[in-house]
Structure formats: structure tokens, C-alpha cells
């Protein structure tokens, strides 16, 4: 029987990868420590597969074709694009997929009535997927089912649909006949801006949003999160804050329970999000 054994929400700021090599700068020590705690937490639940909910940053997908939600169902996939290697020093990687788990979520002959996913047989994962995996599964030995979410190219799916996605994952995976211990990992940002007037401030562009955001996760307040994440509010918090929506999927996939761990870790990039929902089952 399949079950979601752990849900995590983590950052993927690509500049972290080079900057957190020893010696780690003081302001990033907290981020490294959080990643370490989450790596241990993940190893302890011995996952057979990771469902990774993240947003492609115009690396593979451009608006010639822009799906709202897309599942990668390939047995193997590339990670890291040449411009990410060039700009961020992130290594190219090869990752194993889990086509059976992808099929469970996507459907076989017909899409499930609950969700109309797009799909890819050749996903090429960008830093939003690869950076969390490099920190959390350094040996890259846990098969991955990537779910791309469009948080970058408006019109975006609404916050309600991100909640629906999480609820759908929970309902579909838990109790299915597939023999899998599944970790759901969402990758995103708190308030964050790039290519706008509030980039690189050395602190969050919207500390008030971050406080609300961490609180929604800590309290399991799914309705509050959905109500507080309309397009204009997220855009006001910073033009990349839309990727907080992936954490709404995480919260819903954990049954909208209060997070067992919820923090925004202050560093030069703002507040980096770390959310965890441990399940009580074994």
C-alpha cells in the first residue's frame, strides 16, 4: 500500500549551492543547518520515491507551450540546464524517475476526474528541483516524480488549485495498491524578488507576508493561506513570491495539519522557507 510518509517544503535559491560550500558564510549557517535536519528527517522515513512539486524557471518550458501542472513520467531524466551550470555552478545530474507512481497520479488511459495534468516523457529538471535534491538526497538515489507548477508565467493557477493539487495527491497516493513510501517535497520561496526594484535587499522584501506565510503552515491554516495568496498580494510581496503556492500544495498534501516544523530562516536572500509535516504512522 502506498502512503505519504513525510511532507517537506524547502527553498531552492540557486546561489546557495556555491555559497554553502565550506567555509559556510555566517548568515547562511542557519540554512545549511535546516537542510541538514531535513536530510536526516527524510532519511529516517526511508522513502521509496519523492513527489517533487516545483516550478520551472523558463529553463525547459517557455510560453510557446505553458502547462499549469505537468508530471514527468520518464524512467530517467536530466537535471540542471547549461545556463544554470554557467551562472550558478550547479552540476549536471541524472535522476531516476518512478513511472508507476507517476502513472498513479497522472492516470493511464484517461486523466483522473480530479485533475487535468499535462505530462512529459522527457523532463529536464531545473534548479528548483535539483537544488533541494542535492541537499536532501545527496546521493540522488531516491526516484523522483516531478510535478511542474506554473508559478512564473501569468495567468497562473489560483491558490485554490494548488490546495486542490495537494488534496488530490493525498487522496490518490494514500491507500493505493502501489507499494511505496512517498515523500512529498515542495520547493519555493517566501517573499522574493528578482528583476525588480526590491531585489537583493539583504533582507526579505516583505517581512509581513513571511510572518503570515510561516504562520499558515505552523497552524495548518489552509483556508487562510488560500485567502492570503491572491495574485496581487503575492506580486506585492515580490515578483517571485508566487512560488509560495507550492507550499500550499504541501500543506494540503499533509491533510492541512499544523506543520511539525515551520520556519523562515533569515539570510542575505531574505527568509528561506523550511516546513515539515511528519506523519504519525510508521
Amino acid at each position, binding site marked *: 500500500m502506498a502512503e505519504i510518509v513525510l511532507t517537506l517544503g524547502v527553498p531552492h535559491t540557486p546561489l546557495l549551492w556555491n555559497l554553502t560550500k565550506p567555509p559556510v558564510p555566517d548568515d547562511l549557517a542557519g540554512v545549511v543547518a535546516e537542510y541538514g535536519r531535513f536530510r536526516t528527517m527524510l532519511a529516517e522515513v526511508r522513502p521509496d520515491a519523492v513527489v517533487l512539486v516545483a516550478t520551472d*524557471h*523558463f*529553463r525547459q518550458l*517557455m*510560453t*510557446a507551450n*505553458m502547462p499549469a501542472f505537468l508530471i514527468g513520467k520518464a524512467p530517467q531524466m536530466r537535471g540542471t*540546464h*547549461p*545556463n544554470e551550470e*554557467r*551562472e550558478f555552478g550547479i552540476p549536471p545530474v541524472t535522476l531516476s524517475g518512478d513511472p508507476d507512481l507517476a502513472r498513479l497520479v497522472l492516470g493511464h488511459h484517461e486523466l483522473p476526474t480530479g485533475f487535468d495534468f499535462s505530462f512529459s516523457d522527457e523532463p529536464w529538471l531545473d534548479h528548483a528541483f535539483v537544488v533541494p535534491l542535492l541537499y536532501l538526497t545527496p546521493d540522488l538515489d531516491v526516484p523522483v516524480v516531478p510535478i511542474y507548477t506554473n508559478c*512564473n*508565467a*501569468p*495567468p497562473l493557477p489560483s491558490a485554490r488549485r494548488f490546495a486542490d493539487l495537494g488534496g488530490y495527491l493525498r487522496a490518490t497516493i494514500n491507500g493505493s495498491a502501489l507499494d511505496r513510501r512517498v515523500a512529498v517535497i515542495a520547493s519555493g520561496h517566501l517573499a522574493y*524578488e*528578482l*528583476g*525588480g*526594484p526590491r*531585489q*537583493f535587499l539583504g533582507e526579505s522584501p516583505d517581512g509581513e507576508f513571511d510572518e503570515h506565510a510561516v504562520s499558515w503552515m505552523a497552524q495548518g491554516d489552509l483556508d487562510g493561506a488560500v485567502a492570503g495568496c491572491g495574485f496581487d498580494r503575492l*506580486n506585492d510581496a515580490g*515578483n*517571485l513570491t508566487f512560488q509560495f503556492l507550492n507550499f500550499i500544495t504541501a500543506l494540503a498534501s499533509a491533510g492541512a495539519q499544523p506543520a511539525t516544523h515551520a520556519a523562515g530562516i533569515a539570510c542575505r536572500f531574505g527568509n528561506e522557507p523550511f516546513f515539515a509535516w511528519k506523519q504519525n504512522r510508521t
Partner: protein
Amino acid sequence: MSRYMVNKFLWEVESDNESLASFKHDPAGFVADWELGAATPQPPYPAGGSLTAAERQACIAVDYAALYSMGAHPYLLWHFIRAVLVPDPMTVAELSEALKRAIAPLDRPDFTT
């Protein structure tokens, strides 16, 4: 005004090392070739595209204030100018400050794709 074409241009330059080198070497020549490419489209996706005169000038001059005010996608714009202008003639920090100064008077243009 063709926001998609501007975004496509920024994307194609930034995401391919060869295109980036070629654009840096000869911006006007690269743009001319890019627009010519759209005249002979190859499946599945046509290379290149067409720009208005103002867009063409902004792309050739790497005029980030103009591109920003046109509604170029902020993420694509930042990575384009970072790839083209860093490390020569400036650092990331210098470029960031220059960008923020240049777009400060411009409010927040709609970047809906």
C-alpha cells in the same frame, strides 16, 4: 508591442551559450539573424521572431529600463542582462544597483504573458 517575442528573444540568448557569445560579439548582427530565422520556420518551433523598431533597439542596446517598461518578464530580463553584462563591464552588485536605479521611476509594469 509583442511581449512574447521580447521574452522569447531574452530567453533564446540567455539559455544557449553559443547564442550568448554571438550576441555579445555583435548585438545588431545577432538580432538581424534572429529576425531572419523566423522567415524560414522549422518544426516543431520556429526559431527567431519579429520585433517592433522600439523592441529591436532595446534588445540591441540592452536597454533594461525600456525592456522592463515594455513588460518583459522580470526573471528573463534579469538573467539576460546578467549573462550579457557580468562580469564585463560590471559586477552582479553593480548591475543590480544600476537596474534598480533605472526602473525606480517606472512603477510595476504588467508582465502577464
